[in-house]
């Protein structure tokens, strides 16, 4: 069963600003990255999935339920972590998360228990009785994540969870999200404008730009397409390119680098032999996987 399926989903604000246009995706459970620049329509997409906004046209289904018609059914099974600051400063994290657990329908004692558990899972066990106002940005992000987890959802919608974190904090947050997706058995949609960080933890990726779908696929499918060897020599770049071309290898020039498509197993040896035959000083020979980032490089650039 698909986790999220949309069909020609379109959202325009006031008939003029188009936030999403003709978006059709079908993703399976797992950790899903939702990537796009600021203003690409990521938050709008999430709000439609929560039933907070009604689509202008098209349909969205979460767990095969239409959030526009039955928002409560969807929201019961979804945890949402908003992008912006959403924590009152003058209560303790334990009390706040307990309260939100009760709003999600947990009985009082279960809410208290699960709030402690959720805070422990995000790494805030010791500090949970302190007032949130005194927390660092990293701790606040963890409280936001804990409140999304407290009612044991089947899907987490995280809007820019690494916002405002330092590099170490980012890594910790991403590791935590990865753990939730793999060990806890909860599907996660992670919104981010930083492709590099979500690509590490996601099973599949939805890339949108200006409200349009760029690509939606499994990460493995995106990166498996032919690997490339980068060859750097100090001189004689043209000669080497010619020599490799005669060996039926696809060579493209990228400044002082030669990018050679790795089609056969002995490509390393043949390149090394060609370099040795020409007696060129070899600086570098390394393997480059196709990065998901190439999705975002404009086509003209790739052609050069």
């Amino acid at each position, binding site marked *: 069963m698909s986790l999220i399926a949309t069909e020609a989903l379109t959202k325009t604000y006031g008939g003029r600003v188009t936030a999403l246009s003709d978006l059709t995706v079908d993703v399976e459970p797992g950790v899903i990255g939702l990537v796009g620049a600021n203003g690409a329509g990521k938050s709008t997409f999430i709000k439609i999935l929560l039933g907070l906004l009604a689509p202008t046209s098209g349909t969205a289904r979460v767990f095969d339920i239409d959030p526009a018609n039955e928002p409560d059914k969807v*929201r*019961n099974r979804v945890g*949402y972590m908003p992008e912006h600051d959403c924590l009152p400063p*003058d209560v303790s994290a334990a009390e706040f998360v307990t309260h939100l657990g*009760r*709003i*999600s329908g947990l009985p009082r004692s*279960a809410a208290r228990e699960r709030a402690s558990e959720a805070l422990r899972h995000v790494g805030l066990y010791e500090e949970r009785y302190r007032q949130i106002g005194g927390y660092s940005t990293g701790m606040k992000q963890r409280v936001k994540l804990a*409140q999304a987890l407290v009612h044991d959802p089947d899907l987490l919608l995280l809007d820019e969870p690494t916002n405002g974190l330092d590099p170490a904090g980012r890594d910790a947050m991403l590791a935590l999200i990865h753990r939730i997706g793999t060990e806890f058995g909860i599907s996660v949609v992670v919104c981010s404008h930083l492709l590099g960080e979500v690509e590490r933890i996601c099973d599949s990726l939805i890339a949108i730009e200006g409200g349009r779908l760029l690509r939606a696929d499994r990460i493995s499918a995106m990166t498996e397409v032919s690997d490339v060897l980068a060859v750097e020599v100090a001189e004689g770049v043209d000669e080497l390119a010619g020599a490799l071309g005669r060996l039926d290898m696809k060579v493209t020039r990228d400044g002082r680098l030669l990018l050679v498509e790795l089609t056969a197993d002995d490509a390393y040896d043949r390149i090394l032999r060609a370099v040795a035959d020409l007696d060129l000083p070899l600086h570098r020979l390394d393997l480059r996987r196709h990065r998901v980032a190439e999705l975002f490089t404009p086509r003209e650039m790739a052609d050069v």
Partner: protein
Amino acid sequence: MSEASVIHDIGYQRYDGPRLGRGAVLRAIYGHGLRAAFGLGRSAKSKIFPWLVFGITILVGVILAAVRAYAGVVPLNYVQYADAMSWLVILFVAVVAPELVSRDMRSGVLPLYFSRPLRAADYLGAKWVALVTAVWLLLGVPQFIMFLGAAFTTKTGMSGVWNELGDLAPAWAYTLIWAVVFASISLLVASMTGKRAFAAGGIVAVFLVTTPIFGVLMSLPSRTAQELSGLASPMMLISGVGTWLFKAGNTGLPVGRFGPVYAIEVVTLVAACLLLLLARYRKVASL
């Protein structure tokens, strides 16, 4: 298996216990709101003001009960007591209403509420009932103290106690009207801004600005104008309804035959406030 050999699983546990319905969620917000109104579960600083006001109203109630017990005179009856405390009630709602709604707006908590199975009407309803309860307790508890004082010192035995109870019950109903009107107006004003100080100022201003209008109308020579003057100010409006409904209360505002007009205005005022609140939150809830 021996006790020592148990390995505790500290991994993530799914929750398969009961999930409660709408009523329980409403009660949770109501309880949270009522506690917040008196600063319970909050810092010591936020307890100061509500308890100061509550302390004063109780103190006045105790003094009135004592005066009646020892001197045998009744300076203020139950209904008059509620009117006399009006400014304290205004101060109380000016602080508590923003605490209930502006605070959630300011800190951005609302998206967390409304991304859960909760409607704007549920949220508002629970907050409104919480504030009504808080205001009612503010006046109702001292009234009960006055009743206890009178009941224990009555010289006519059980029938005296029954008489007192007959006076207390309508006064409690009158206090409820106070609570409903004040809660509705102050929540509406507070929902306009996330800044608590502005909200508090706005609430006091609404009650303050309307009082001179009442004063001007009252000073007109026309008897009809005088009898209708109470409609201009929320406080006098309530007094007017009190005069009409509870003759024995003796609120001191002449309403003549316009009593029902006062009642109708109370109902429409409360309904209008609640509808405006709902309209406001429809917008907020969709973020």
